[in-house]
């Protein structure tokens, strides 16, 4: 017998009575969504910029490039100084990545980033991350977020809430573990 059949057969003897799937109906808090998002983003060590348009993002990228930083942009209309390399390992010296976020979640400061153009590892391998989200795409909570996000077959997506962090040494919070060391979110 294959292990799959063995397991499925064993499961026929489950002792608990079948339970129905509950209806998930949690009331969202919709007052001041952007304010809620900003508060929670701060809690997870991210920074919000109410940019209003892409101009402010381009201005920031220009400053970074002028400082000699390696910047890659996957946001249409934002120009930087690095192109997507063929091998994802060559992203290792990227200082800043500018990536679109599909949704922002007010209750916890997370942003849904779907599989970026180029390499999946881009939002994680860069030293610093800039996410660009449309102000209309701030939703109240995770229940609403999962209803709206796209996750196509064969693809990848992640909720990113702040820069990477750890508290594994004596519970001391250190920002910048393996992923990006800072996160700036631009609402446009």
């Amino acid at each position, binding site marked *: 017998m294959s292990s799959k059949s063995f397991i499925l057969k064993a499961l026929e003897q489950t002792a608990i*009575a079948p*339970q129905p799937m509950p209806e998930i109906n949690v009331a969202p808090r919709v007052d001041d969504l952007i304010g809620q998002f900003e508060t929670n983003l701060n809690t997870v060590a991210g920074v919000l910029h109410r940019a209003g348009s892409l101009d402010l993002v381009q201005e920031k990228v220009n400053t970074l490039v002028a400082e000699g930083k390696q910047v890659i942009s996957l946001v249409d209309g934002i120009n930087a100084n690095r192109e997507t390399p063929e091998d994802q*390992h060559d992203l290792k010296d990227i200082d800043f990545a500018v990536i679109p976020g599909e949704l922002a979640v007010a209750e916890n400061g997370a942003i849904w980033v779907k599989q970026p153009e180029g390499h999946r590892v881009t939002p*994680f391998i860069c030293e610093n991350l800039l996410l660009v989200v449309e102000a209309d795409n701030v939703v109240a909570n995770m229940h609403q977020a999962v209803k709206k996000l796209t996750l196509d077959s*064969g693809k990848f997506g*992640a909720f990113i809430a702040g820069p990477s962090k750890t508290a594994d040494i004596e519970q*001391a919070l250190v920002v910048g573990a393996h992923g*990006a060391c800072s996160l700036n979110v631009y609402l446009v």
Partner: protein
Amino acid sequence: MSHTASKIHADKAAIFCKDEDRVNWHSKALWLLREKRDRAASSLPEWEQLRQLGSEIKLHTLTNLAKYLEMFEQNCQANGIQVHWAKDAAEHNEIVHGILSHHQVKKLVKSKSMLTEECHMNPYLEERGIEVIDTDLGERIIQLAGQPPSHIVVPAIHLKKEEVGELFHEKIGTEAGASDPTYLTRAARAHLREQFLSADAAMTGVNMAIAEKGAVVVCTNEGNADMGANLPKVQIHSMGMDKMVPNLDSAAVLLRMLARNATGQPVTTYSSFYRGPKAGGEMHVVIVDNGRSNMLKDKILAESLKCIRCGGCMNTCPVYRRSGGHSYNYTIPGPIGIAVGAQKDDTNSIAWACTLCGSCTQVCPTKVPLDKIIHHHRRLKAEAGNLPYGKRSYMPVVGKVMGSAPMLNTSMAMARTALRILPGSLLKPFAGAWGKYRELPVAPKSSFEAWYKKNRS
């Protein structure tokens, strides 16, 4: 941590308790997490509603597990993911080794996975010439120290920063005497980045597996799972079959509670959904039983599979906080470790590493009735004739005495008299381990029964 020949919980806890300052420090560090959890939970008015939903979603999935596992497999395959089934730890390790040797993998970067600890996978692969690098900072620390994790969320919680500094100095060349967490974390970041960039394959655990989508969800704060899975060609995800949920809506409910209940964060920094391999890569999922279907055959033990591994029960447990994670004769410590590990415990002692205070059950985000399960384990052990140390001989006597009113009254009267007239030094030995850290009580003048008859009847 010190090593002992005895695997009995009380013996190993006694070693941890020798260093009173460390015990107090350990207890406080975990209580801090518990306080953060309370603040996060109380900031959501719908917290109790979420717990109820979490419990019902998990129960629904467990009672339809065969259906969801098959749906998951089918959808994974449609997404280009290869699915493997392992009935036990040995088969899990063989499957993983098979994939790795097929690709001639020499170095594997691994994210925290309690399942691979449960399967003792690292030594298995290392014996076969594969270098396994744990990439979660806490896991890397204990891997370098040659220790198992002592907590499922904060695996190196038992170590002080000076000890980590000394270890890093020796193993990765940080400055001697350095103990600043930021400095040490930065050094580990640089050291592990080299590992990520030179690995041939990556492995992660699974927080949730979504049947309807054929996708797995992996949660970390450090980003190590994503640095791992998205760099080398091969990614492997190892999942206990209890990690199944029906759909994205269910995952949303659990994601709202996981980090809040673990560390008090509103959500983990990265909650990543993998629904297929990266371009030119391979993605494998290994579904593992290893005793889980057996637990489902007992309706009380079955509820322990509702657990989402937040570690909240450990942080609140008065026994765990004062005995350390290494005192449990199982990979997973604390209340949930007893619930899922007591059957495999050959010392038959961990089911008693609990005061039955019930705090764990109160904080559990999916309402796993931990105290009830632990109590049930004691009954199962007793019925199988597997009571630990002295209990087998004296518990039947205690049962007889307590079952008979005259015998109980007589013995309590004797005890009250003895406590009044005999010196403590003479009586203390009779209190056994109980008396070790406690003073004997002051005897009341009469029995409760006599008091009740006089005042209330």
